[in-house]
């Protein structure tokens, strides 16, 4: 019997709205980091994902993730709730907290959207827009949905999966594996197939608008409260725990990034502050309600330092992950997911799934740590391999890379028929009015 809880429902509608805001926020965060000639394309990749993945989600995405059935351990039944029809509130994911079906389905849509948009940071300046849109739809269907089903929909990595049986129940509170490891590994695969930007590592590719980056980071942080606190599915003390940890870990990660670059490069930069914020948000996501304040502080510290060091790896290894989806989301997601194995605690106001164990530092032994490492590795391998195959198929069929003259001249003007700033286009005359 479903009983509506109007408090929880109001909270979840607001939380969903906050998470939806993260994708336009990401557009600013990423848009400011590219050169002025490709800022519109960068932002449009996020907005494009927002449009397409919303549609996919209501058509079959929700159903294929959370519908009944467990095909290959990767998919639910895509037709059960096709078009979000045919569902009663008893079947709501959040029925236990009195939140109706549509609110639950809508909240989950926002996660699918932001995950796809996150990948775009790896392919700045050089991917055909049409190919990006095709990629977004295919990737959401063949990588995001299975990953979300595996972790949250009763698949391999959930409490009902083989790992839970062999070791312990994996902990991913708000999407460390489903969202961040997934997007990070996918970004690496897509960047490898796409190839480096012309002049990568030689020509300066200075972020053209750092205030945009700061604005985007601030809005991401704001939206992330919906992401993490909302993942409790109820307005309660555990949501409060997730909210506080989302402040603490993020603040510490920002400071840690700034100290790291001050020591290494001599300057505490605004881009470092914005990047540290996102690194901290990413890392605390899976752990948001599963650790106490001390755990959140350490997770923020480790994420801030490691991500600040990891963003340099692309120059050493020669892959052009343009805006550091790997360095921030993959590394940050791994930090959070693995450190749960040390800091998870079932103490007051923390969330705990049945069958999960306390972390190594909280008297639970090493089992949860092993579980978390195994789950993280499976997520990396699944996402990387599946994305790599999708990208290769797209490259062999419709092509993925914009021609060199478009990349050099600016993808905004060639592909979108616009330029972001007056100074970029020279003089203009009206030639046709429709």
């Amino acid at each position, binding site marked *: 019997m479903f009983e509506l809880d109007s408090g929880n429902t109001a909270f979840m509608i607001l939380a969903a709205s906050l998470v939806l805001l993260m994708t336009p926020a990401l557009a600013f965060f990423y848009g400011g980091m590219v050169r002025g000639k490709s800022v519109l394309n960068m932002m449009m990749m996020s907005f494009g994902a927002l449009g397409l993945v919303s549609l996919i989600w209501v058509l079959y995405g929700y159903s294929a993730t959370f519908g009944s059935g467990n095909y290959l351990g990767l998919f639910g039944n895509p037709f059960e709730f096709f078009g979000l029809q045919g569902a009663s509130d008893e079947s709501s994911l959040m029925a236990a907290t009195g939140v109706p079906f549509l609110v639950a389905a809508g909240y989950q849509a926002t996660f699918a959207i932001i995950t796809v948009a996150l990948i775009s940071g790896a392919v700045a300046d050089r991917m055909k827009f049409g190919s990006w849109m095709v990629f977004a739809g295919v990737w959401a269907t063949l990588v995001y949905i299975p990953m979300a089903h595996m972790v949250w929909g009763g698949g391999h990595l959930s409490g009902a999966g083989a790992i839970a049986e062999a070791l312990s129940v994996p902990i991913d509170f708000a999407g460390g594996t489903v969202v961040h490891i997934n997007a990070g590994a996918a970004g690496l695969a897509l960047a490898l197939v796409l190839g480096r930007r012309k002049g990568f590592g030689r020509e300066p590719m200075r972020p053209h608008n750092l205030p945009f980056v700061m604005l985007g980071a601030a809005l991401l942080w704001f939206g992330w409260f919906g992401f993490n606190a909302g993942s409790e599915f109820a307005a309660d003390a555990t949501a409060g725990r997730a909210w506080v940890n989302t402040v603490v870990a993020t603040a510490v990660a920002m400071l840690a990034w700034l100290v790291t670059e001050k020591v290494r490069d*001599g300057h505490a930069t605004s*881009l470092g502050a914005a990047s540290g914020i996102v690194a901290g948000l990413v890392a605390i996501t899976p752990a948001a309600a599963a650790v106490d304040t001390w755990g959140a502080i350490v997770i923020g510290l480790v994420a801030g330092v490691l991500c600040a060091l990891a963003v340099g790896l692309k120059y050493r290894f020669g892959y052009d992950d343009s805006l*550091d989806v790997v360095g921030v989301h993959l590394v940050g997601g791994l930090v959070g997911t693995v450190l749960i194995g040390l800091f998870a605690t079932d103490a007051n106001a923390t969330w705990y799934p049945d069958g999960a164990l306390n972390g190594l530092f909280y008297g639970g032994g090493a089992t949860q740590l092993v579980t978390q490492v195994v789950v993280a590795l499976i997520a990396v391998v699944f996402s990387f391999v599946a994305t790599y195959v999708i990208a290769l198929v797209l490259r062999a069929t419709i092509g993925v890379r914009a021609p060199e003259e478009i990349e050099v001249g600016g993808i905004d003007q060639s592909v979108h028929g616009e330029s972001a700033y007056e100074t970029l286009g020279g003089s203009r005359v009206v030639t046709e009015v429709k």
Partner: protein
Amino acid sequence: MTKLVQAVIQPHRLDDVKSALEAAGVRGLTVSEASGYGRQRGHTEVYRGAEYTVDLVPKVKIDVLVADEDAPGVLDVVVKAAQTGKIGDGKVWVVPVEDVARVRTGEHGADAL
């Protein structure tokens, strides 16, 4: 006849140079944003650990048309007002001008100044 005094200076010295030229009786000048370097060379910036050397730094360029006999004085005024004593202060030079016309009236030469 006429001379053109040209100066490339530190942007933050522009207000002082402008006031000094006004005080010296110069009635018009053209200012443009410029970039370049001399012995100062550039500076470095770091973005997520990637270090960029910015070799062209922002400068302001001033053009002043003056009568022949005023040129050495105007040059000195600019030097004095723009000087901070640090590397990167800029340069001032004088070049001869073949003819000048005032657009509004069509006057030529000294009358156009």
